[in-house]
């Protein structure tokens, strides 16, 4: 009797654990929607999302500048991180000897553990003065992209490496048996087969980039202007919330919660794309 009891109890306990995580997510969603919906009602969704002026002091709440800023910084970081990340994943999965592989993996894992404020500090002290030599104030989309690249790289590397390793050995053996060189095998057989996993890693990296706050407010300048070049300062959605939430009240505060809603929806979309992409990958490999 007690064996079945423990079995039942264990099942309920595990279910309760999962329910708690789901409840936390639900609580967060309810909290920010409750805080942000008044802003949407009063400002109007269209004016809020596409308004080009953010001046709470004068009752103007348009977050287009911040949306463009976030998109620019994310795109910049992916432009830098994707080639580097995939190259590193190929190295780790196919090319590197065992010792080098172990060492590199440790190094990549270390990158994940560094707090974002430390990335911001290094960016502020090293990158910004260097970029100032190229023109502009130094606090720029370029600085933010480089910092974000370093933060997104581990995600892309580890998931891409796993995807490349997951390609069935028969593919690689067949290609080599037919006379392809190692590089031809990698470029024309392994990478295309691992494509959906690599896309998923890029999309997850994108999610991390969109959500980064601390490092952003330290190197991007936080000015409410559209970035006209990689060297111009701007503001991100996350930076907007972080810089102003401590003193905002009333409609201003609600507008910041509404910015949170926009971020929440954005991350949901990005994560869904990643999950769908991974699922598709599973099917393709089963067809072989």
């Amino acid at each position, binding site marked *: 009797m007690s064996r079945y009891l423990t079995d039942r109890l264990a099942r309920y306990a595990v279910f309760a654990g999962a329910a708690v995580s789901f409840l936390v997510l639900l609580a967060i969603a309810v909290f920010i929607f409750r805080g942000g919906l008044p802003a949407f009602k009063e400002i109007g969704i269209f004016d809020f999302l596409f308004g080009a002026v953010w001046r709470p*002091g004068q009752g103007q709440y348009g977050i287009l500048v911040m949306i463009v800023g976030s998109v620019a910084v994310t795109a910049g970081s992916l432009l830098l991180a994707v080639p580097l990340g995939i190259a590193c994943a190929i190295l780790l999965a196919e090319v590197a000897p065992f010792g080098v592989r172990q060492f590199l993996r440790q190094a990549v894992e270390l990158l994940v553990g560094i707090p974002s404020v430390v990335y911001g500090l290094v960016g502020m002290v090293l990158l910004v003065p260097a970029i100032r030599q190229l023109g502009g104030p130094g606090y720029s989309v370029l600085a933010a992209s480089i910092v974000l690249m370093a933060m997104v790289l581990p995600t892309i590397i580890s998931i891409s490496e796993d995807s490349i390793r997951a390609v069935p050995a028969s593919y690689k053996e067949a290609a080599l048996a037919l006379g392809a060189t190692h590089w031809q095998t990698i470029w024309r057989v392994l990478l295309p087969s691992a494509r959906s996993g690599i896309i998923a890693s890029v999309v997850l990296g994108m999610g991390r980039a969109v959500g980064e706050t601390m490092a952003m407010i330290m190197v991007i300048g*936080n*000015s409410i202007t559209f970035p006209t070049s990689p060297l111009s300062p701007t503001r991100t959605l996350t930076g907007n919330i972080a810089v102003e939430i401590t003193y905002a009240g009333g409609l201003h505060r609600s507008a910041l919660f509404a910015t949170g809603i926009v971020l929440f929806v954005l991350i949901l979309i990005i994560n869904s794309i990643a999950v769908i992409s991974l699922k598709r990958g599973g099917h393709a490999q089963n067809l072989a």
Partner: protein
Amino acid sequence: MNIRHLVKLSSLMTALVLAVALAVTGCAGGNGGQVTTITMAGSTTVQPLAEELANNFTATRSDVQITVSGGGSSVGIQAAAAGTVDIGMASRDLKPEEETLGLVVHVIARDGIAIISHPSQNVTNLTKDEVKLIFAGNITNWAEVGGADATITVYAREEGSGTRAAFEEMVMKGTAITASALLFPSNGALRTAVAGDPNGISFISFGYLDDSVKAFAIDGVAATVENAKNATYPIVRPILLLTKGEPTGKVQEFISFCLGPVGQAIVAKHYVPVI
């Protein structure tokens, strides 16, 4: 080393860590009596002054501890009104909508706002009007005010800052600060930013002036505490400590200390005393 040894070692370490932690916390407040903690938060302008006053006040007594944090004047006012801290710090007057919060205002000093630049800046004097036009984005090149041919980079504080509010009230007078200003959340951060940018300009409290930046003379008047005292320097604002209702107990003792001779002597080092 087998599992038994591992368990013994780890329990020994845990016991050691706990013992050390207990000893350390036990030693603090060793008079066995109540230690009152006074919490202060708000303006980053007032923060270093408050820390020095707090250190001096608690140096000779062990029954009070004072913790000071920043966040900006608006945060200090809100926190004091909500009761989250005992004393709020602000570097600007209360706005009309804040006057109904039930706060008692104690003016402990007056402070000048310095317009700063990189030490290598050739321009040494600006008129109040030029300052306004630079921060509004109408003057964009140092050459227009007698300097080198370089684009001016404007650095400013976030909107909740008391220093920014006082600056807007006394210099900008209704004109908005340019949207392309780079915003940083404290006096210290602005000073660091301008110290690293040869074409930067910003505004910080007199209390934050040091060798890493240079202060402009405004309308020919140098940015010194003397000139703030005799009212020839044009940009001066009050330094406030705020309490919810009249202060009592240790909080009242601390505020009396700040307004007394010892406290005001500390104030007089970088700010204008009120007695």
